[in-house]
């Protein structure tokens, strides 16, 4: 019964029906926005990339496979839009937590002295890593996807995800220890 309902829902999506698309949009928009915010470190960029992600998703609906899992499918599109952004900019826009250093400094004086530098250090370390490794780390350890799901999102086998995650942890460990100042 659940499979039949899921199958009917996918069919509605493939026909680009408003109600079905609105359902997945409302269910996943906050997750996708926060994922893109974590990757980019910028509210404006996360807003733009979220918009681009759902527009791409809408246009891709007719090609949606009947056995598709919506969440990894959307994360795959979001990851591709982030990669597109990196290609366009030719640099990684990992910015400190918060949109500007000034904002961070102001927040830090309001009693978050311990937590804010920690968050900033994570962002700086991720910025220092190769994007594909940072994506793996965030999808697997922050967004909570399994190796299989991360593989679907990044177009890798589960075994390749495990290998990449192991190396990503090593990169992160070095970058985090030295404040992001590592050779790629």
């Amino acid at each position: 019964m659940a499979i039949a309902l899921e199958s009917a829902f996918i069919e509605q999506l493939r026909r680009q029906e408003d109600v079905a698309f609105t359902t997945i949009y409302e269910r996943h928009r906050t997750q996708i926005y926060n994922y893109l915010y974590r990757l980019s470190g910028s509210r404006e960029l996360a807003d733009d990339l979220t918009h681009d992600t759902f527009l791409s998703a809408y246009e891709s609906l007719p090609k949606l496979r009947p056995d598709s899992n919506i969440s990894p499918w959307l994360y795959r599109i979001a990851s591709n839009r982030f990669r597109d952004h990196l290609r366009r900019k030719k640099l990684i826009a990992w910015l400190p937590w918060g949109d500007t250093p000034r904002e961070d400094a102001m927040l830090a004086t309001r009693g978050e002295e311990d937590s804010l530098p920690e968050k900033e250090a994570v962002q700086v370390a991720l910025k220092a890593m190769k994007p594909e490794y940072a994506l793996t780390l965030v999808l697997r350890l922050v967004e909570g996807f399994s190796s299989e799901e991360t593989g679907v999102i990044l177009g890798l086998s589960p075994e390749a995800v495990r290998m990449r995650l192991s190396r990503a942890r090593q990169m992160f460990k070095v970058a985090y220890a030295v404040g992001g100042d590592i050779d790629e």
Partner: protein
Amino acid sequence: MMSACNRDILSAFVDAELTLPQRRDVERHVQSCAPCAAEVEDLRRINSILAAWGATARPFPPVTDARVASSIDRRRGRRAVAALSRLTPAAFGSAVAALVVAFSVNSSALTHRSSSSATGSSLAGARQISDSLHRIRSQSAILGVQVESQATLFSPRRLALLDVQ
């Protein structure tokens, strides 16, 4: 048995991605290997750091809702124009004539959607549209344009594209 200190295996161990026998091998190994024990601690600490970093979720900005809705509406509009542009000149003329006549002669048939919560209402609306088509063909004959069959010109898909369903 774990043959050597292997970071990939330790990473899989921390992620609980090993089989039970493999897991027991690693547990035995780290009890007697200080560097591997330290590495496991480091890997677990990285997991904790990233989990804490990702625990804060920002609220979704409402302005994005409007941007997404607006962009999708524009895409739909472009597709409607593209669909019209693919019509032959005669069919395009008939489509325009049909729209003008449909709006002016029988607007009630085209507004049935708002009151068609029941199947009976939808069928009544469909009948009204069918009646309108007869009138449209008559008007089109006077205008000298050829009207496509109801199935092609006024298919639900095309009506949806024209947003007059």
